[in-house]
């Protein structure tokens, strides 16, 4: 007779095959930094924890919550309204605004923060502009927590906009018609139908925004707002206790996951399937000129605030600091940035695809559950991931040096640490979820029938994947590539810590100028980041609209 343990193990491992090994390997490979950090948590915080908990945390948590709350409200307002209007109404410049509304994503939020400081500054662009009309509105002070919430909202609302727009585009007209014949007007359609239905899409966007808000350091620091992340940096660099920093980061993670859980629980039974409805697409409403103008204004506002205004300010700065620009070296930075971002995005998409396949083809539920660790990286602050990558790669290098030294009496150098490989690896860890989620979602939409048809025609899983799934997934893969590409172009803290010698990215170039109080000179690299982000975003939007 077998023991229960034996039976349990037997059951758990009965279907353990090559795919399971593959899934486990990828998960472990991607999970190393997360696991490394998780282990650190159990070591507890350092001694400065008590000081931080007593003097700083209550304030920092308060600020972070306030910021998170206000950003949620503002970005939902900007994102949902513009998405709804752009899908539902005909107005001036609609086609252009549709993609202009996404572009704020191409600007790192700390750069938007600097640009706005320049606009509202003493003797800033706004005063200059109003001065021409002999107007003086005094000085609007944006550098406070409300101003910060505004900055973060206008630079991050596209996450909500994109999610909601995609959702609205797939709604069928008959829902609106049904509401109409039941006696409801346009406002009621929006508040009673569209808004509640769009909740999952909205929440998805808001969670991404919250993670960015809670991870933000640059903008908050410049605007003099101390947030939870300030605490992380302070305990790391001010009190020199990385363990406390990691502990705080872990707390942050717990808070984020707590929020997600609460939301999911609250949604409860209402988990309705969000799928394309049958029936005709939403009709676009035509309206009077006056109404068209006001809709255009409402829709153009976020795009103007989040993209046009900061870009104008940066162009102005770039123009006045033009002579100082060292073009040859800047060009090299551009090429390096593009190369790194493209390579990282490619690796990320490749890893996401392998993880997805390993998950689908392996038959063990617990392996699939475990593989979720792989996509946790997006919720972890970049600086913390950097440590999680840096330390293990260093251990590995030291171990390798020891082995080689003993066995071959050779002295070799660090193999991974401080190289492009470690940097790319860290990007993959951090941004895997960005690539994984759209690909997984798109793959779910492929009809099972197609795959089964292919299999019944004698093609194996892999060959079905190559011949049927891959061509169908192409738009999603490209989309994922572009999203990661843009994220890597903007990435700062992780790059700062892990980048190798004589590799310079545009984000770092801009940051170094800005942190050295040469904001004006930071304008050119910032504009280049934006330029490299804008083209893919436009392309991505065409991809989304076409489907």
């Amino acid at each position, binding site marked *: 007779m077998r023991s229960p343990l034996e039976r349990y193990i037997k059951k758990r491992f009965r279907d353990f095959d090559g795919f399971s090994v593959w899934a486990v390997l990828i998960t472990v490979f991607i999970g190393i930094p997360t696991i490394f950090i998780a282990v650190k948590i159990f070591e507890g915080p350092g001694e400065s924890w008590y000081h931080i908990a007593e003097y700083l945390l209550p304030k920092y948590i308060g600020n972070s919550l306030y910021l998170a709350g206000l950003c949620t409200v503002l970005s939902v307002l900007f994102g949902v309204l513009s998405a709804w209007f752009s899908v539902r109404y005909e107005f001036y410049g609609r086609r252009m605004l549709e993609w202009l509304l996404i572009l704020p994503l191409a600007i790192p939020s700390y750069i938007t923060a600097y640009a706005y400081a320049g606009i509202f500054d003493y003797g800033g662009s706004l005063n200059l502009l109003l001065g021409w009309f002999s107007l003086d509105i005094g000085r609007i002070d944006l550098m406070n927590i409300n101003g910060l919430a505004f900055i973060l909202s206008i630079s991050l609302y596209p996450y909500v906009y994109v999610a909601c727009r995609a959702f609205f585009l797939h709604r*069928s007209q*008959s*829902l609106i*018609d*049904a*509401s*109409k*014949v*039941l*006696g*409801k*007007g346009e406002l009621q359609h929006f508040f*009673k*139908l569209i808004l*509640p*239905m769009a*909740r999952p899409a909205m929440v998805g966007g808001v969670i991404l925004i919250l993670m960015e808000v809670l991870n933000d350091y640059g903008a908050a620091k410049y605007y003099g707002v101390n947030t939870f992340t300030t605490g992380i940096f302070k305990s790391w660099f001010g009190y020199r206790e990385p363990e406390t920093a990691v502990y705080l980061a872990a707390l942050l993670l717990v808070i984020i996951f707590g929020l997600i859980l609460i939301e999911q629980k609250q949604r409860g*039974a*209402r988990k*309705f*399937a969000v799928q394309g*409805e*049958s*029936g005709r697409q939403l009709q676009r409403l035509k309206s009077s000129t006056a109404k068209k103008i006001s809709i255009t204004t409402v829709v153009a506002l976020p795009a103007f605030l989040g993209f046009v205004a900061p870009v104008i300010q940066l162009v102005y700065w770039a123009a006045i600091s033009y002579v100082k620009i060292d073009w040859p070296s800047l060009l090299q930075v551009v090429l390096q940035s593009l190369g790194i971002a493209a390579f990282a995005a490619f690796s990320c998409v490749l890893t996401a695809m392998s993880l997805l396949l390993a998950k689908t083809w392996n038959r063990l539920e617990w392996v699939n559950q475990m593989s979720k660790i792989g996509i946790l990286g997006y919720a972890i602050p970049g600086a913390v991931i950097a440590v999680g990558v840096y330390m293990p790669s260093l251990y590995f290098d030291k171990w390798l040096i020891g082995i080689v030294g003993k066995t071959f009496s050779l002295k070799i150098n660090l193999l991974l640490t401080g190289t492009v490989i470690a940097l790319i690896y860290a990007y993959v860890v951090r941004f895997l979820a960005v690539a994984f989620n759209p690909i997984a979602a798109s793959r779910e939409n492929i009809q099972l029938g197609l795959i089964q048809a292919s299999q019944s025609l004698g093609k194996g899983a892999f060959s079905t994947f190559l011949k049927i799934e891959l061509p169908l997934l192409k738009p999603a893969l490209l989309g994922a590539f572009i999203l990661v590409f843009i994220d890597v172009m903007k990435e700062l803290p992780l790059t700062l810590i892990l980048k190798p010698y004589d590799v310079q990215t545009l984000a770092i170039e801009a940051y170094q100028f800005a942190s050295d109080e040469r904001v004006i000179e930071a304008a050119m690299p910032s504009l280049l980041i934006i330029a490299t982000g804008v083209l893919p975003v436009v392309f991505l939007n065409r991809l989304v609209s076409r489907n």
Partner: protein
Amino acid sequence: MLLTINHLYKSFNREKVQAVYDTSLQLEAGKTYAFLGESGSGKTTLARLIAGLERPDRGEIYLNERLISSESYHLPAEKRAIGFVFQHYALFPHLTIAKNIEYGISARPDKRKVVEDMLSLISLEGYGKRYPHEISGGQQQRIALARALAPKPRLILLDEPFSNLDSNLRQELRTEVFTILQKTGVGAIFITHNSEDAMAISDEIAVFKDGRLVQKATPEELYEHPVSPYVAGFFDTLIEMPPSLLSSFGYQVNQHKLYLIRNHDFHFNGFKEFSTDATVISSSRVGRNYLIDVKVGEHVLQVSSEEKPDQSEISISWRERDLLVFPKPDQPV
């Protein structure tokens, strides 16, 4: 008159598609109607015009003698009190069954009771707390009906209400919906492409083709005296009888007419008014009847019959009153 439609026009795509063309129609209160037509015949557009979901290009619609649509006036859909059951039901996925039914009457104080009444009317008591994705297709259909009935509309439009259901459920639900509508006494219009549905459920049928009303009559009238092959074709499979074939039966042909016979109006070996010799090529059983391919001269006819001829050389015949005669389509009417 419950509903009066005068010379209604509606086009889409900058007048490239004439969805509704010069349509006039009068519907009486308390009766059940069916709009019958192929897809693209304009029947759904007409229904949407009646509901106020579209605006006509020209013409008027009156509800209870009151103007609700014209070229210059449009009473919004939400003010018309006309119920609409959509083809895919359009149940709001984020609301419970009860909330779906309550949606159109949310301002009324007795809404709870109405919801309860509606649920019992459609025999789905106790389903109020469920969500649309948790119930079956037939149940969703009835919920959609209840939702449309809850505000007590003067008229209810049902767009292809049974098209998503398999044939067993279809008949069952047809009866049920009919009973429910009878109980409430509301005027109803079924929009359908299925003649069987139309005949089973309506007092009068309006047949549409290419945006025009072709014929409006009771089911019997429509069956007995269809005005065009299109109308007749809805109910039966028709066999066109070209002049050469007709003359082999000994029938005097008018060159300007089109002759058709329903495929089950042929008889074997019996004596009927017009008959000729034929050869049986093949036969197969389809349900209660046989489909039999017979050769008459150069022509092969597929006729339907309850019995199968026991030899291959037979005589085949038909009666004059079963011959459907229409003007030729290319001739002026």
